[in-house]
């Protein structure tokens, strides 16, 4: 099975986020970046499918030069090779524009399966995989926790709301968006890190893919959420704050 995993590099979860001077995006200088969490689960699912059924795992990502370490991390975990769409203006493209880039790079590979994470931790649109399927003319399913290969294609376990699940059969080739938590993530081994250095990373300039980048939605402004609720922050050292909180909970909120 040839599997392509579309991954994204996003600001690290604990990173201090500041809005840029134009108020249109975040200040990127000095930010630490990491592999998007649900994409890590998509990669894990791909690596496990390869271990069971053989084949190849190719990671695909779009972004500026700084995505290099994220690609190496995926290769160190066990992906066979990578395609990097070199694109400095990823953030100013809309979901359709990004999916068009990925689809154009992915199509000549003719994969049996395309996996993406459910959503990115920065924009959180959760649309890339679903739009990719549409652009590639492939069936898809989203929020997938488990993938089984069958004689005719795949059986996947889809998460529904409030603790419900559903199994879905679909033919391959197909696109799946992977929910976090379905697998246990592996760490890169020292051997893996060493091997990653010699694996193929093919860089494709975004301009070479010649996709339509007309915007149909524009992120005009980024702002801090307005506080709607007045939260009482209890000051002091941990002991003082804890004692004050217990007082408040007993005598003001009356919940203890």
């Amino acid at each position, binding site marked *: 099975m040839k599997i392509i995993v579309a991954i994204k590099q996003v600001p690290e*979860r604990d990173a201090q986020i500041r809005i840029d001077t134009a108020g249109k995006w975040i200040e990127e200088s000095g930010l630490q970046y990491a592999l998007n969490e649900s994409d890590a689960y998509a990669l894990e699912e791909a690596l496990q499918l390869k271990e069971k059924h053989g084949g190849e795992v190719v990671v695909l990502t779009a972004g500026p030069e700084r995505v290099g370490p994220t690609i190496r991390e995926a290769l160190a975990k066990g992906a066979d090779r990578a395609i990097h769409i070199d694109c400095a203006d990823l953030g100013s493209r809309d979901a359709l524009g990004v999916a068009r880039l990925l689809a154009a790079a992915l199509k000549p590979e003719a994969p049996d399966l395309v996996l993406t994470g459910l959503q990115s931790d920065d924009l959180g649109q*959760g649309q890339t995989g679903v739009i990719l399927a549409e652009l590639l003319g492939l069936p898809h399913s989203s929020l997938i926790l488990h993938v089984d290969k069958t004689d005719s294609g795949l059986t996947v376990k889809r998460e529904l709301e409030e603790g419900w699940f*559903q199994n879905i059969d679909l033919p391959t080739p197909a696109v799946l968006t992977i929910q976090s938590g379905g697998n246990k993530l592996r760490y890169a081994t020292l051997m893996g890190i060493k091997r990653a250095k010699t694996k193929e990373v093919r860089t494709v300039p975004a301009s070479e893919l010649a996709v339509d980048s007309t915007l149909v*939605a524009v992120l005009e402004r980024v702002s801090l*959420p307005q506080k709607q609720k007045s939260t*009482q922050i209890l000051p002091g050292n941990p002991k003082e704050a*804890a004692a004050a909180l*217990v007082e408040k909970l007993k005598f003001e909120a009356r919940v203890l």
Partner: protein
Amino acid sequence: MSGIYVVIEERDGRASRISWEAVAAGQKLATLAGQTVNAIVLGAQTEAIAAEVAAKAFAKVVRIEHPLLAAYTADGFTLALQQFIESDKPDYVVFPHTYQVRDYAPKLAARLGQVLIGDVTGFGDGPVFTRQLMQGRLNGSYRPTGNGPCFVSVQAGAFRADETQPGAAAISTFTPTIEPAQIRTKPSERFRGAAQTVDLGSAQLIVGVGRGIKDAANIPIAQDLATALGAELGASRPICDNGWLPMERQIGSSGQTISPKLYIAVGISGAIQHLVGIKGSQCVVAINKDADAPIFEAADYGIVGDLMEVVPALTEAVKAAQ
């Protein structure tokens, strides 16, 4: 062009609660944009739900009905809505932001050369739509610039279902053309996960643990607080994903919805998926090292600090007060 359409999602034969929230959003958008608002119900048998929906202030309710829409599939729902939208050319299509909508609305929008502006929490003149970025730490304002219909889904809890206006709408039927071979996925019946032995839904005191706990070995710090309070221990999704606590203790949109007297969120940043699950709590306390964490927006009381120091201090203070 013909106004705004709100796509109603069915749950157990009736319009789901979040669908009414989407209706409230659609009616507000109609006022802002000077448009009429209509509703769409989809399925194999839509007569009853159409009648339920028609008791609200819509210009019309459209039943998109076909035997192949009996079970939800992305292929079926996309084809049916695509055909209707191409024939009726709405300006806006408004959805509730549910797992089902996330599965097909981006596909539908892409097929028509548009994008879904998803998980919207509000809108203003333009119209410009607001949605959260960076796990709720920032808001982004999106302006649709396409020349086709604008697709928007609204976040659970962002609009008030009880603000829908009553009315008496005309009902019409649209029959899409769908061939069985066009539906490529075969869904099975829904099923529940492992038997729930922990009922967080009815617990009165709950301590929730998040990523800030850093390591499975630190879970007892939160457990000690829960024990001192006589509270149940819950968690945000990443803690259960890591296997540090069982899945049945997960609080949020994919886990349990809670409504305790007191909820203490320990090291939880407050992603929307978690916040929707704690909305019913009477009193929320947040303990987090990041003063800008979205959880503080949902909290009545907060302590900004290192949970490794604050939580043991709180456990002692609770014991001392007993």
